[in-house]
């Protein structure tokens, strides 16, 4: 479904990702794990179209989208829930969701139905519907960010660090939702510092180290991999 081939991505002279190739198949949850600063978020931004590739290409459903601007990728079926959630703080929960559905150009009734569907998935958001997003807790903001991305009806959902700064109980809830999404047929590309959690849900996973893919395999295999265990799972100390 998504193929990133030999991607090089940089900020000015700094190369954040070098020659990275990843592949996401339809219906899978694919995780990218790695330390802070390994280039995970950079790679996600490039897939969403926020950063240009200096080399390599990106294919989505067989079509090359390397230079497609971000707003068109949303209509093409890719939505990103960005790192740090990035909800619109001065707009209500409902309006944040409405904005997420912008690309679908829905009638008012269809928009309400689409928002209602997100409330069904995230009942907490229904309770908070008229509150400004800035007043939500971190976990609620994360749910809103995911729901907002889902409003675009993506076939590929990009989740960047959904556990960032959240309490363990909330993190479990978010990862439960990721499994629900897979059950609903949504393909997920997940970037996560908490490698054990990410590898636990992932069908396929990649380890990114200083901008390069150093390991790949099934989530279960990487969970057992000695190098991964030593570097990211706190074993071997």
């Amino acid at each position: 479904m998504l193929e990133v081939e030999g991607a090089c991505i940089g900020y000015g002279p700094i190369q954040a990702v070098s020659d990275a190739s990843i592949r996401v198949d339809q219906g899978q949850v694919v995780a990218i794990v790695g330390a802070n600063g390994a280039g995970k978020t950079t790679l996600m931004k490039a897939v969403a179209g926020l950063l240009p590739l200096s080399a390599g290409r990106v294919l989505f459903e067989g079509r090359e989208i390397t230079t497609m601007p971000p707003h068109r990728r949303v209509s093409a079926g890719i939505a990103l829930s960005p790192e740090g959630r990035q909800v619109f703080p001065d707009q209500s929960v409902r309006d944040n969701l409405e904005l997420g559905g912008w690309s679908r150009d829905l009638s008012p009734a269809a928009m309400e139905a689409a928002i209602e569907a997100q409330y069904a998935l995230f009942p907490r958001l229904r309770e908070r519907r008229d509150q400004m997003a800035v007043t939500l807790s971190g976990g609620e903001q994360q749910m809103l960010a995911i729901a907002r991305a889902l409003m675009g009806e993506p076939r590929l959902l990009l989740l960047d660090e959904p556990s960032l700064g959240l309490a363990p109980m909330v993190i479990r809830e978010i990862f439960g939702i990721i499994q629900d999404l897979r059950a609903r047929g949504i393909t997920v590309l997940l970037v996560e510092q908490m490698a054990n959690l990410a590898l636990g849900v992932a069908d396929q996973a990649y380890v990114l180290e200083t901008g390069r893919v150093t390991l790949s395999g099934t989530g279960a295999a990487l969970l057992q991999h000695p190098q991964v265990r030593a570097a990211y799972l706190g074993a071997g100390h």
Partner: protein
Amino acid sequence: MLATVLQALVSGLAIGGVYALIALSFSITFTTTRTLNFAQGEFIGVGAFLGVTVLYALSSGEGGSFAALAPAASAGFRYPVAALAVGAALGTLGLLLFLAAVRPFAGKPGMSWVMSTIGFGIILQSLGLAVWGPAPVNMPSPFGDDVIRLGGAGVRPQELAVLAMAVLLMVGFDLVMRRTRLGKAMRAVAHDPAVASLMGINVTAIMLGAFALSSALAGVGGVLVAPIASASLFMGVGIALKAFSGAILGGLDNPRGCIFGGFALGLMESGVALWQAQWREIAVFLLIILVLAIRPNGLFGRRALDKV
């Protein structure tokens, strides 16, 4: 005494309405693109002259000469048509300004867009002088020049019309920003263009729209204010400077704050003029400097700390 105070209040609100409208127009481009159109003053003057031209064309024969239009030239549908035509023409000019003088430089280091928008304004003003000449011309008010008596104060109908139109436009804008999908998208772009693009919003299109709207407001502002003084290619610069001060006072990133700042400036101006006309500008700008020293982001501006 009461009558003079009332008089100052009404004219302060009228000119404040114009300041508020133009302050809002600054805020519209600033929030969405972090740039300003420093040609806004020239846009006001050109808007006024275009308005006179449209009135002249619509009333050929019965409206008098171009330099001295008769009251009939503004009668009936002609004045609203002129305002709409000027809005559309200046809106288009705003698109051109964005593409030629802002987009190539926006978001890049340095402040090239400041110079390029100033330059755009100077070119526009020179073209206007070539077409219309330097002399101010009269634009008759559609409501006549008979002074209305309000509790002893004499008010010109155009002043009330300016206030009413400015308030109508600003309330309309506020409703669009809060209630419609397009307005919410504009606010999303204002908050963070990159995140807005992740919603599928075409950020460039919104920025183009912001410049078109901002420039259209300047043009309409020119058509509104011209019957109070007279249409001149130089009239806009002073208005734009005051409006900009009002925007800074209220907080450039807060549209409602800008509206407040514009009205506040108009009222302060006419209030101080009651006492000593020649102290008007001094008192007003001293107060602005004082306020900004205490609140650098303006009275209602977002604190820099809010943006993490």
